[in-house]
């Protein structure tokens, strides 16, 4: 630690980054949560109530970044505040500009990795676990109820948690080298790899789901009745395909439309 900030302060700030969206609002986005997260560091840097209040005021302005990567911005902002408290010529505008530049870049790199790729992949791996593991014998405990969600949680957090744990400390250490900091995170590279894993996992999911479909149990077994199952599968696929194109970002509505179509078909069968 080069300044007054201690490791414990950085750890406290990192833990508070978990609550960065507790007061999320359209006017400031994560601004209030950012102020809450950086507060332990501001308390260490500034001694008086007035100085701390003024510093907090600077940090509850508008800011929007990826919640997993918010720690890097908190750490970098704390380093700039520390330099300012030490008497270096660091203006309010310089702190705000540095924060926003880092925050928006991290959001642009973090959104595709965490929201678009990793989160769906983690869920899919949980579903694949369900398909891979055999159901237990009658009377035995069904451990799939624990293993499926556990794999989802482990997959996501194995990638995301290191960024959250060490984000504040890394941001603090590399505040003067934001470009090097961003490069060292390898966000785009990891996203490219995980995208392929995600598509690969979907292929595996399709085969596994197809192999598990027990059409005979549903329909009674005859070829004609089995064909009746293909019709609803196709209907669902068509409604899903049209729905995701027409209603982007509205999966609940698409799923409800599929359910409504299924009810019509079921009434007709």
């Amino acid at each position, binding site marked *: 630690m080069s300044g007054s900030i201690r490791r414990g302060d950085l750890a406290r700030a990192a833990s508070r*980054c*978990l*609550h960065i969206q*507790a*007061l999320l*609002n359209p*006017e*400031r986005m994560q601004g*209030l*949560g950012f102020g*809450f997260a950086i*507060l332990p560091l501001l308390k260490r840097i500034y001694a008086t*109530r007035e100085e*701390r*209040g003024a510093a907090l*005021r600077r940090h509850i302005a508008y800011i929007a970044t990826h919640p997993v990567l918010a720690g890097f911005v908190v750490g970098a902002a704390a380093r700039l505040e520390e330099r300012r408290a030490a008497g270096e010529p660091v203006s309010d505008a310089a702190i705000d500009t540095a924060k926003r530049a880092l925050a928006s870049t991290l959001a642009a790199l973090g959104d595709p990795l965490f*929201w678009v790729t990793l*989160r769906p992949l*983690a*869920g899919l791996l*949980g*579903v694949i676990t369900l398909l891979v593991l055999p159901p237990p014998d009658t009377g035995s405990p069904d451990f799939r109820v624990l293993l499926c*969600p556990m794999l*989802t*949680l482990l997959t*996501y957090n194995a990638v995301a948690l290191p960024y959250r744990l060490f984000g504040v400390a890394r941001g603090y250490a590399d505040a003067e080298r934001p470009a090097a900091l961003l490069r060292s995170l390898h966000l785009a590279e990891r996203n490219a790899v995980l*995208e*392929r894993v995600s*598509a690969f*996992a*979907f*292929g*595996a*999911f*399709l*085969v596994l789901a197809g*192999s598990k479909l027990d059409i005979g*149990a*549903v329909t009674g077994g005859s070829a004609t009745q089995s064909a009746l*199952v293909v019709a*609803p*599968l196709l209907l*669902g*696929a068509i*409604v*899903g*395909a049209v729905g995701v194109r027409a209603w982007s*970002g*509205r*999966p*609940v509505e*698409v*799923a*409800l439309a599929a*359910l409504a179509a*299924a*009810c019509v078909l*079921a*009434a007709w*069968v």
Partner: protein
Amino acid sequence: MVAELIRVSLLGGLLATDRAAGWNLMLSQPLVGACLAGALVNPGPEWELWALRVPIAVGAILQLLLTDVALPAAHRPRDTATAGIVGASVALLGLPRLHPSLAVSAGGILWVVIGVAAGLLSAVLGGWFARLHRTGPLTVARADALAEAGDLAAFERLTWGGLVRAFLVGAAWAWGGTILFLWAALSFLPRFSSALTARRAGVLFATLLGAAAVMAFHAHVRGRRHGTRWAALGALVTVFVIRGLGGVKP
């Protein structure tokens, strides 16, 4: 049932906080919520076989249906965090109560369909309910005033209050949504008992599965660089592995 509802409520609060407060540990994914609800809700020893299988299936289908690659800011305000909990809880709590009038087995498919339907409707209504957690301009103005006055302790209390509110809103909806949809299921489904055959349950399930597969394709393959190639490779490798292991024919 009161003990079960309390557990469901606490779980709903926890998962809503994960989604709303920024924890984002993925506790709020439907698969996780449904499985945890399945572990907490016990419909009785005679239903032991279904008590865990139904929630996993409800969670898996909701997970595939509700996974959307649009960024959270582009989403409609839908409460997908408690959808898995409400869906699984309604299916499990309804199972012993509805069984006398809806004695359909078909591998528990009917209960899975009921759970998925309850989860989807819960996501819509829960989205409206979750607006209670919104931080308004008054809170922002209060935060400004507290920072101006240098009252850091009060500012921290404001944030902790936001966390507690997120928890309470999620808990209230998990509790209220489960009661609402359970009441709806108990009131209306027995009237359709003659129409709810195993075959129709299968048709509903298969349609949901078809939609889920396409939505999963949209999330995992479409728009990805070489996505189709990697998906085909994944399918081929899985076919070879299954055949190599001598398992079920794909």
